[in-house]
């Protein structure tokens, strides 16, 4: 398998161009799905390869429980620079698994606690909380999906804008956007090169809900105003907890996008544009990633099978 085993670790770099270009050139729904699929594929492949290299690394350690044949020179030759790479892969894989486990656990904990906080309320889809901090979010799962919104936020919106807000949160719930967000968060944990995709998907998922809300209320301008007002009302509030990417200023970009023309729903962009090249680059990167990790896995199984005395 040679250097192919290392390819999936760096191939996420091929997705960087599309992570940058997707938000302007693709429909947010297409962008979210594409980027999440690419991120998930690359993360799985990169982790599989890390695991393969780790097997070689662990086999060198004295006193390991693996079969003796696994530390044979033939096995070690399968991975270039096996001494360094094998040993480095052990802490790397442990770090990846721990970080992913922590992210997943935290995600489940926040959702569980938020549902528990609403336990005493009427079992309605919208939970209005009397609070002077303006915030709103979609809370999936539990006994039922809920939209949580505070009176402070509702007070600063006009009736049409409130409808836009509810439509936005319902779009998150109906589209199961939390699954995309969780998938890219886990992927970014599995391979740090996938972090730009996490940032991009966090943005495109919001844009997706914005566009759905605009269709539901029949006015893109109303949604833009709702977002703008809500953001201005909640500036300086301590709810940075939900702000995943405040530094890049996503709110003005969302408002500007809504005030501009509606995005075209194109299935697959032409190869001869920059966004087409970027899309195909990411798709080819994901495919090569999948092929080299599959190739490495099969090779490794064959080598280990040959090396194991039965």
């Amino acid at each position, binding site marked *: 398998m040679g250097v192919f085993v290392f390819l999936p670790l760096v191939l996420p770099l091929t997705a960087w161009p599309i992570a940058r270009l997707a938000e302007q050139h693709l429909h947010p729904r297409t962008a979210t799905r594409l980027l999440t699929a690419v991120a998930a594929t690359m993360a799985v492949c990169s982790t599989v390869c890390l695991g393969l290299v780790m097997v070689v690394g662990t086999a060198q350690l004295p006193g390991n429980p693996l079969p003796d044949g696994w530390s044979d020179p033939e096995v070690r030759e399968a991975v270039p620079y096996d001494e360094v790479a094998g040993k480095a892969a052990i802490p790397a894989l442990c770090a990846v698994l721990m970080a992913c486990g922590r992210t997943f656990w*935290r995600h489940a904990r926040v959702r569980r606690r938020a549902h528990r906080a609403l336990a005493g309320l009427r079992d309605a889809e919208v939970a*209005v909380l009397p*609070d002077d901090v303006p915030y709103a979010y979609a809370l999936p799962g539990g006994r039922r999906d809920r939209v949580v919104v505070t009176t402070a936020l509702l007070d600063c919106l006009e009736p049409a804008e409130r409808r836009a807000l509810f439509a936005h949160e319902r779009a998150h719930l109906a589209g199961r956007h939390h699954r995309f967000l969780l998938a890219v968060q886990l992927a970014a944990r599995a391979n740090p090169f996938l972090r730009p995709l996490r940032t991009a998907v966090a943005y495109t998922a919001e844009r997706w809900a914005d566009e759905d809300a605009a269709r539901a209320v029949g006015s893109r301008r109303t949604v833009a105003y709702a977002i703008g007002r809500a*953001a201005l009302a909640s500036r300086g509030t301590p709810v940075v907890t939900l702000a*995943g990417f405040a530094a890049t200023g996503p709110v003005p970009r969302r408002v500007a996008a809504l005030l501009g023309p509606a995005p075209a729903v194109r299935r697959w962009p032409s190869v001869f544009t920059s966004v087409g090249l970027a899309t195909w680059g990411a798709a080819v990167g994901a495919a090569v990633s999948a092929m080299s990790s599959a190739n490495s896995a099969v090779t490794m199984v064959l080598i280990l099978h040959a090396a194991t005395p039965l």
Partner: protein
Amino acid sequence: MAERQRPRRRGQGELEALVLSALRDADAPATAGWVQERLGQDLAYTTVITILTRLLAKGAVTRERAGRSFVWTPASDHAGLAAHKMRRVLDAESDREAVLASFVTGLGPDDERLLRELLGQSRSERED
């Protein structure tokens, strides 16, 4: 059987809500013993005291001394209690990762000016 299992399955949040509604049903400040009787389930007196103390910490009830014990008065409704708890959940996640997709995220230093410009422009276009 099912009857006996129910109190055990109930979460803390649900018990707090039950105690709060019992207090809200009372005409006057009530004692913990009254709440316990009112709920009429096999809740221990100490459990009721624990829940009342927790509600006190959340500002959902107030208490004053009457003789040798306390009498309790509700200070907020269920929505107020839920709002308080939700804030605690959100404040505990001081991480910059978005677990829940929120409607708006924070504004950077230049974002506010940019946003006002965008909304202002759009408004003047509409008026033209």
